[in-house]
């Protein structure tokens, strides 16, 4: 088991109180698994990703544990986490396109980055060049400034940098959202290639675009309003989702070949609850067409079929 997360709870501190951005997250990722993490904006998916590597204020660690390769990560202790960052856990941030230092040549920037993690640049350089070849970037980019690269090239460059030390876990946060379809496809396929070549043991791919996850992920975790709603192998999530939220979310996606004149799709009525004072019970209750009295209690996140976890009382009833 590459990654095991248990009961992870992280809040945001604000002047008006704590925002319950992530509560009781419990899941596992196998070696070599690419897990997609999807949900609407504000559902806590980025919070979950970041809490595994950069838990800084205003984020506040409340409880829970994280093991990576059977070793507990001290995610609440920023100093001690330094030993793991980049070496074992690495992140491609959401705005990776602007993540590089604009006033350093890229090679120089990588050198400084490696030195700060006590790695010798010269030793890594041959491998760095091999990986540049792999993502079809010329070696000259090391002598260039970030501004000289196009959006897709920057994205590939950041991917190479983030995975350079072969981390056990790579967290890719919305890395395809700002790209054109063709570049998007190239970048997504590269993620799979990095896994296949074992540069990265396992991956969390955070995105709001489920159709991208269908192409690259082995499993998908759906979040709603700070809690886990459903996790299952990709095929099951797309073809037989069990949580009402997942069902509504998937049915609201327009596909090539669907037009409003033939088949009018509908969104999900209502808005997600405010997490400053989250409702009791199931957080999807207000928008859920299937809600009943039991939903006033918080549903646990249970395995209802092999590798298929869901948090919904209706679903448990069907199985009881």
């Amino acid at each position, binding site marked *: 088991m590459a990654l095991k997360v248990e009961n992870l709870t992280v809040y945001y501190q604000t002047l008006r109180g704590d925002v319950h951005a992530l509560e009781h997250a419990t899941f596992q990722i196998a070696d070599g698994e690419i897990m997609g993490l999807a949900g609407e904006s504000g559902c806590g998916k980025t919070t979950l990703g970041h809490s595994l590597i950069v838990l800084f204020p205003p984020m506040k660690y409340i409880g829970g544990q994280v093991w990576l390769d059977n070793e507990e990560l001290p995610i609440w202790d920023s100093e001690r986490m330094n030993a793991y960052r980049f070496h074992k856990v690495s992140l491609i941030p959401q705005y990776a396109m602007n993540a590089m230092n604009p006033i350093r040549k890229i090679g120089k920037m990588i050198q400084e980055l490696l030195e700060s993690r006590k790695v010798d640049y010269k030793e890594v350089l041959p491998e760095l060049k091999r990986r540049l070849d792999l993502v079809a970037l010329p070696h000259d980019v090391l002598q260039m400034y970030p501004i000289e690269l196009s959006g897709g090239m920057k994205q590939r460059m950041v991917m190479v940098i983030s995975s350079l030390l072969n981390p056990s876990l790579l967290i890719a946060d919305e890395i395809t959202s700002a790209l054109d379809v063709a570049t998007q496809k190239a970048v997504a396929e590269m993620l799979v290639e990095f896994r296949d070549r074992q540069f990265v043991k396992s991956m969390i791919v955070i995105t*709001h675009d489920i159709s991208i996850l269908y192409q690259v992920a082995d499993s998908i975790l759906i979040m709603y309003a700070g809690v886990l709603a459903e996790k299952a192998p990709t095929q099951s999530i797309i073809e037989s989702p069990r949580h009402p939220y997942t069902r509504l979310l998937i049915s609201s996606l327009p596909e090539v070949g669907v037009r409003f004149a033939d088949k009018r799709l509908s*969104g999900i009525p209502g808005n997600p609850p405010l997490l400053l004072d989250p409702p009791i019970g199931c957080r999807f209750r207000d928008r859920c067409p299937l809600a009943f009295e039991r939903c006033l209690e918080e549903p646990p996140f249970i395995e209802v079929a092999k590798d298929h976890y869901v948090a919904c009382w209706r679903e448990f009833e069907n199985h009881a």
Partner: protein
Amino acid sequence: MLRLDNVSKVYRIGAFGGKALHAVNNVSFEVQKGEVVALIGESGSGKSTIGKMILRLLEVTEGKITYNGEDISVFKGETLKNYYRQVQGVFQDPFSSYNPIFKADRIFEVLHEEFFPGLSATEWQHRVENALFSVGLNPAHVLNKYPHQLSGGQLQRFLIARALLLDIQFLVADEIISMLDASTRIDVLNLLADLKSRGLSILFITHDLSLAYYISDRAIILYKGYVVERGAAEKIFHTPLHPYTRMLMESVPRLDRKWEKGTTLLERQAEAFQGGCPYYERCPVAEKICAAYRPPLAEVDADHLVACVHYEPSATPLNPLAYTEQRTRQGNPG
């Protein structure tokens, strides 16, 4: 009703404006009343530039844009104001369309003062509420709030409501749903579909093909400022002919089909482009002639035009349905 004739836009770039960037080249198309036309292209294809020229936010370098037969470039003062009563735009990022230090409904007040000074406050309030209802918002929930208190979907619908308060006939919708969540995105699309059925014409600018197909009657594919294919939406989406359109269709992530492996060609660095087909550098089926000759848009079928040598009258066309089998040339880009 809105018509572009050989419209080009040249930007002056470089320190002293010494270099020219041809953002839009000889683009012609027409949008009829009650029609949704999708303008599709990747970043840098000139799609937003076209939208801005229609809204008179940019000047046309060459060619002519006419609205109901009148050249829009000569409008000024009262005639321009009248044009804006009928033609409005909504843009990608709803958050940057508002001034964060004022309440969001200020956009309605400005409209009141500028376009309807004769209306009383209560009458205006009534109209605003009607417009908000028609975009699916409850005025009690959204009025009197600051932009940060509203969600992206609400702000975007606010902007559409603002456009509806005018006597709007034509809407330029520039990537209006790319920043919205999947669950609210479809509501905004359905709203556009309803407005269309009431006779509104929409130029729907996007890079997302599945959204474009959902709503549009006709589609235009732009590449480097050139129209490479245009026509009825079903034809463009079901039998894409231009190699670029085929590549786009193949790259769209879908829930019913996985990507073909290894068919993507990475982008190359933009090189100085002289004559020839704009897609030559990336085209998997390019011929020698394509380097020097730029084919015009030719009609291959009723309401389906393509600019590619393979579909010129004398050429043997590629099989339109075989695009999934078409292998993309694997070159070393850059």
